């Protein structure tokens, strides 16, 4: 029974090892690591296969095997030098291998000579006799004799080696294993990528356990000539043979060791599951046959056939089931690109933050697809190009390279390094590509516009890119384009929302700057209206009671619209509130404000400003008009006076002279101040409301109280515009002398 189990384990592990060797070599014969791994697994497979032949065929037959055939089994010892070779390139290339690769290949020489030796001279005595030279020549005799001694000595030495070759090579192999172990340990420590590390851990664990069990069960007893419990010895060999190939297969299936394609991995699962099911069936059929024979006696062929037919009927469903289970166990997971893609698209669909999207993309390429030197380049409108690195987690700003960009747009999909028109690119771009060891560029294109591109360096496994990789990148790129667009739109809407909120706040602040109540006086009645065309405006009016007991009134209009104009007005408001309280003449107040405002050195940012102070007792209006639309004083006698006196608009030129004028107000006088938003309000035909219309409306309604009058004027302006929105800020002040 033990022999049967041993044969089964030997046969299957040997078959799996050689199958894996074949798959790995066929997958990428040009890749060095594939060749080396394949060789190692092949030689490892010869061991159990030879053992199977011995236990299953030779031992039961009781025949003595010819030493020549027997010695072929020693071929498997090439496993040890190929094991060292493997550890020199996996998980990373060892530096000593880079320097002296020949030394590693020389590792095969001892085993090669060993096998040659034992194949040629399976009997040690043959060497001695082959090297003994019989000489009958007197002259050369002495020389030849002497030479013969040396040869004989060599012969004896070889003979000794051959005598104890099994022990001797056990020691050699043990040394090889120790060296390989050191390389594996060093290589493993220099791996940083967590997924590659995991892959390496599985491979190392699998091979190490197999080798350790082999050392314990075979090498140690051989070297030290120990008697060992046979059952325990076989158990350990079985465990080692199951674990070694098992872990390598697991690493290939589950962790995409050596980037074996999905279809190959699936076929591997299928082969293993088929073999398993077939073996099981054969066992069942055989047992059934035995039972049937014992019940019905031998020779009932019909029954056996019936059992086979029945078994075949259930074969496919059972095979499918086993295949499905194995597939779920192995194929689904990080190793499968479709799972990576699925995972990636599920994540990015919810990432509306561009930075997070960027990080997830870089992480996927780096940690899931195991690619080195990944960066994401995003050109900006300002002519720069932000390059985000996966490894360093930081970004660097480069100059945009339009040649590369238009090349990527024309190509549209994955570009390999050889296809990049390097001489046409800027030196900066060339350096960037070289420095990051770029192998592939993946452009992200939306509506003939390049949103960015991802640059991929080499694979962490050191392998080349295959067709499956390229397809994956294409799908990834398409998903990324959608996600980047979404993130952009979301960011813009957020930005807009933030701006709107800020503007609403600014509007509120500006409202607070305007007087909340109108001055109340028995002799003077006021009405005031101000409406910005946007959220905030550049119009201003105010009423201030001065320390001298006068009532200051002012109206102003800053150049431009919106926020710049509003900021200018805020400055003016602060200045005028301070200046109004001083003892200066009003033209001097204007000079002061003008000099303060124009010192900022932006002459195109000016304000037209009318400032007046009313001595209520004396009924005198003192005013200074700095370039503002003339306020109109409708006198009670029907005449109209335009209040022009003052000086140039404020904020543009320093040290300008201003004058002021005084006018005595009379009962029934009506003062109208306005900004150009009122008179220049346009209809669809681009006709302005105009000064004459304003004057006419007021003249026609001059008996109406100021509040009513203001409504009438604004109503007329709106009628003129006929539903058109206001083009400019619009302010209207009316004062009536009772």
């Amino acid at each position, binding site marked *: 029974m033990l022999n049967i189990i041993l044969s089964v384990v030997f046969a299957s592990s040997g078959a799996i090892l050689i199958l894996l060797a074949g798959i790995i070599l066929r997958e990428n014969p040009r890749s060095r690591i594939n060749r080396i791994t394949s060789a190692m697994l092949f030689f490892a497979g010869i061991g159990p296969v030879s053992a199977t032949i011995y236990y299953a065929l030779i031992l039961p037959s009781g025949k003595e095997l010819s030493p020549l055939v027997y010695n072929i089994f020693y071929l498997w010892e090439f496993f040890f030098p190929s094991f060292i070779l493997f550890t020199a390139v996996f998980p990373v290339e060892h530096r000593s291998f880079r320097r002296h690769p020949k030394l590693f290949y020389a590792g095969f020489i001892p085993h090669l000579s060993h096998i040659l030796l034992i194949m040629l001279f399976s009997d040690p005595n043959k060497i001695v006799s082959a090297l003994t030279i019989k000489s009958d020549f007197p002259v050369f005799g002495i020389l030849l004799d002497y030479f013969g001694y040396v040869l004989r000595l060599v012969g004896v030495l070889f003979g000794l080696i051959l005598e104890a070759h099994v022990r001797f090579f056990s020691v050699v192999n043990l040394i090889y294993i120790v060296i390989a172990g050191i390389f594996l340990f060093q290589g493993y420590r220099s791996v940083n990528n967590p997924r590659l590390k995991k892959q390496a851990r599985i491979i190392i664990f699998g091979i190490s356990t197999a080798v350790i069990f082999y050392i314990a069960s075979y090498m140690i007893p051989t070297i030290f000539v120990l008697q060992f419990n046979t059952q325990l010895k076989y158990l350990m060999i079985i465990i080692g043979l199951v674990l070694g190939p098992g872990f390598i297969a697991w690493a290939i299936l589950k962790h995409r060791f050596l980037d074996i394609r999905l279809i190959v991995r699936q076929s591997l699962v299928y082969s293993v599951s088929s073999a398993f099911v077939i073996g099981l069936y054969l066992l069942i059929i055989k047992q059934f046959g035995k039972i049937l024979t014992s019940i019905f006696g031998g020779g009932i062929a019909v029954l056996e056939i019936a059992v086979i037919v029945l078994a075949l009927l259930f074969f496919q469903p059972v095979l499918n089931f086993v295949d499905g289970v194995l597939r779920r166990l192995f194929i689904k997971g990080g190793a499968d690109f479709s799972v990576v893609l699925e995972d990636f698209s599920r994540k990015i669909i919810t990432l509306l933050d561009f930075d997070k999207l960027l990080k997830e993309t870089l992480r996927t390429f780096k940690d899931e697809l195991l690619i080195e030197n990944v960066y994401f380049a995003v050109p900006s409108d300002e002519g720069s190009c932000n390059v985000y690195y996966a490894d360093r987690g930081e970004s660097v700003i480069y100059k945009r390279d339009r040649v590369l960009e238009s090349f990527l747009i024309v190509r549209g999909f994955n570009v390999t390094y050889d296809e990049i028109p390097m001489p046409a690119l800027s030196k900066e771009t060339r350096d960037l590509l070289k420095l990051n060891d770029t192998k592939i560029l993946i452009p992200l294109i939306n509506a003939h516009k390049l949103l960015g591109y991802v640059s991929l360096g080499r694979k962490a496994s050191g392998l080349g890119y295959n067709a499956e990789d390229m397809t994956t990148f294409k799908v990834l790129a398409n998903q990324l384009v959608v996600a980047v667009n979404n993130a952009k739109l979301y960011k813009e809407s957020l930005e807009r929302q933030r701006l709107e909120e800020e503007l609403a706040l600014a509007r509120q602040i500006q409202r607070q700057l305007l007087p909340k109540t109108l001055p109340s006086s028995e002799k003077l009645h006021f009405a005031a209206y101000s409406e910005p065309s946007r959220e905030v405006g550049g119009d201003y009016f105010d009423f201030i009671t001065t320390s001298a007991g006068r009532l200051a009134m002012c109206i102003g*209009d*800053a*150049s*431009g619209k919106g926020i710049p104009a509003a900021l200018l007005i805020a400055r003016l408001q602060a200045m005028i509130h301070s200046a109004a309280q001083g003892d200066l003449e009003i033209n001097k107040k204007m000079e002061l404000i003008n000099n303060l405002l124009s010192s900022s050195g*932006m*002459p*195109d*940012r*000016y304000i*037209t400003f009318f400032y007046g102070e009313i001595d209520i007792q004396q009924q005198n209006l003192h005013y200074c008009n*700095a*370039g*503002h*639309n*003339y306020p109109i004083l409708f006198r009670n006698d029907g005449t109209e006076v335009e209040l022009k006196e*003052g*000086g*140039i*608009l404020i904020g*543009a*030129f320093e040290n300008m002279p201003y004058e002021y004028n005084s006018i005595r107000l009379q009962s029934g006088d009506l003062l109208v101040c306005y900004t*150009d938003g009122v008179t220049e309000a346009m209809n669809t035909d681009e006709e302005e409301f105009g000064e004459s219309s304003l004057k006419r409306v007021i003249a026609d309604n001059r008996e109406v109280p100021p509040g009513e009058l203001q409504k009438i004027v604004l109503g007329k302006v709106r009628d003129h515009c006929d539903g058109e929105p206001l083009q*400019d800020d619009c302010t209207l002040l009316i004062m009536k002398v009772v």
Partner: protein
Amino acid sequence: MKLSQREINDVVILEPKGKIMGGPDATLLHDKLHELIKDGKKKVIVDLAKVDWMNSTGLGILISGLTTMRNNGGELKLANVTDKIESLLTITKLITVFENYDSLEEALNSFKT
């Protein structure tokens, strides 16, 4: 606004056409004047014959142009100002800082003396 340029006896004549408003117009004139200053041109006439309208920002552009020229030892004069713009210059009292001529010839002559 479109801006064309010619030169008579060392005097650069800029002819804006259309409406002078904010935005790109400002940089257009600004860049042009700086270019002229760099080339050592100090005498500039802005011929406003073909400008039919100007808003407050447009006026700011002219003020800025005048300041730029004066700060660099040059001069900017206006010619052929339309009634509407003239009234704008009058109300704002910019008429007191801008040299303003009814014809291009007068403006050119003013540079000779």
